[in-house]
């Protein structure tokens, strides 16, 4: 590396980070703008936040999105980790290729295609079985289908690196395979289950395209409401809502990052301790 290169690299890095963050910071700043005009600063005000609290449409949509998010990510974690266990632990079974393809497909499938095809399925199913009504049920099903894939990817890599000797030891001591798995491996993959759940929850909460297709009348999720408001023009209460979401997520990610670093440090200390105990001197 010559002398100038690090400065050049660093300035590109700073430029990139600025590109990522300036739009969000400007949005947050404008959420406190008293003026309704987007280009005029009318002084500091919490007006749009108060407005938000009285906006029934947004509150209802937010509640619906949260409910769907909790339901869908819980189901996705269950199905996704079952798929991960199957793919890591059972080397050969009928349908292995199909399962591999199906957990990878949602990662490369454009949302718009998934949305259209799932809507066509739900319409045909409803004609045949009078079930499901388009709305909450179809939204949850569609969200589970794409979130489970992300859970599988997260859990699978953790499961592959998990040490199986503990589980074998438990089985040697007389525990059944299920009991041994639950007592030894489950605690090891628990962080992956948690991050899989959080990832699913965020993906579900943020999904616009698939939801727009599979939803029915009266069931508008938060992204659908935001999209239609933004499409119609700038609305300052969306700024307030966006700022709240960004602040919550930011706090969550920073807290999770701090927690992860602390556990990592603890694990390193533990490992040092163990190696010192094992070494003869």
């Amino acid at each position, binding site marked *: 590396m010559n002398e100038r290169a*690090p400065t*050049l*690299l*660093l300035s*590109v*890095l700073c*430029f*990139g*980070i600025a*590109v*990522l*963050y*300036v*739009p*969000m910071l*400007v*949005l947050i700043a*404008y959420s406190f703008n008293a003026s309704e005009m987007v280009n005029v600063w009318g002084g500091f005000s919490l007006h749009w936040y108060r407005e938000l609290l009285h906006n029934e449409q947004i509150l209802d949509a937010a509640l619906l999105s949260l409910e769907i998010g909790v339901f869908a990510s819980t189901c996705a974690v269950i*199905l996704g980790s*079952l*798929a991960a266990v*199957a793919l890591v632990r*059972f080397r050969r079974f009928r349908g292995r290729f199909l*399962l591999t393809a*199906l*957990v990878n*497909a*949602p990662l*490369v499938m*454009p*949302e*718009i*295609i998934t949305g*259209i*095809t*799932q809507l*066509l*399925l739900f319409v*045909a199913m409803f*004609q045949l079985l009078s079930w499901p009504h388009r709305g909450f049920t179809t939204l949850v099903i*569609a969200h589970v*289908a794409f979130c*489970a894939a992300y859970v*599988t990817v997260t859990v699978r*890599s953790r499961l*592959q690196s998990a040490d199986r000797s503990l589980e074998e030891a438990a089985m040697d001591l007389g525990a059944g395979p299920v009991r041994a798995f639950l007592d030894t491996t489950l605690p090891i993959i628990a962080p992956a289950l948690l991050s899989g759940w959080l990832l699913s929850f965020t993906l579900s909460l943020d999904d616009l*395209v698939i939801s727009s*297709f599979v939803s029915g009348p009266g069931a508008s999720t938060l992204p659908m409401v*935001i*999209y239609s408001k933004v*499409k119609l023009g*700038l609305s300052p209460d*969306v700024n307030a809502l*966006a700022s709240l*979401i*960004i602040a919550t*997520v930011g706090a969550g*990610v920073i807290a999770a*990052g701090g927690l992860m*670093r602390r556990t990592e440090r603890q694990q390193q200390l533990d490992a040092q301790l163990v190696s010192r105990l094992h070494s003869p001197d």
Partner: protein
Amino acid sequence: MQLLLANLVRRYGRWLIILPPLLFLVLFFLVPFTFAFKISFADTALAVPPYTAVWNLTADHHLSVRLSLANYRYLLTDEVYAFSYLYSLRTAFFSTLICLLLGYPMAYAMARSSKSTQAILMLIIILPFWTSFLLRVYALEGIIRENGLLNSVLLWLGLIHHPLQIMRTNLAVYLGIIYSYLPFMVLPLFATLEKLDHTLLEAAADLGSSPWRAFFDVTLPLSMPGVIAGSMLVFIPAIGEFVIPSLLGGPDNLMIGRVLWDEFFTNRDWPVASAVAVAFLVFLVGPIALYQHYSTAQPES
């Protein structure tokens, strides 16, 4: 009896683990495509749902099948579709390229910084990924619109005398994709560059390579897995992108995702939309999936 039960569980217990996700994904991910395939051969009808039946059981128990190839013929004759496939490919390709050119130095700078700085920088790059995609696109609008921050700054600096028209142009779509997907490019690049063996660069320098020469001979080839993974993560979602062209692009923007959306919701032509989806799958998603399947270079994230 108990032994029998235990034997049964041992033999078939694994299916209790395999079947739930397999059946769910087959029913709600695979089967839908067969429906799309079927409906792409139907005709539009003023009915609920708005298409004709492909097969019918007639009164005398004969199965009558009516396949209509009109939708596919329509895709071939109306050049809007061919154009929008190519246009989506081009947009995704150039956005990916610009993301790579911007993301590579970023990832390289991250990889060269100290471990504690790396942890913080990782957090900074990951954070936007967790915030709402839709809201970030909306936030970008606040920067590039006619009276937005960018124009205000440029006017104030005296670099321009009239506000630039960026919103509702193709440039806005490019900016939107680059802004939204940049973290997807940086993270895999960082993951490979961080593991790079620095002694190789020193060896190259000792043998008389210039820094640039060493970069092109050593660093770049070794970081190819990251380049490929990052490019895939940007290129794939960018092709089918709907939100960005819809919110930032002009009314004449023809990204394929948007064409599909309009065909479905505005024109309510479900059979043609299905045919577009099937063609999309065959020409774009299929090759990518095959490529991913056969490329061993793809690292597990």
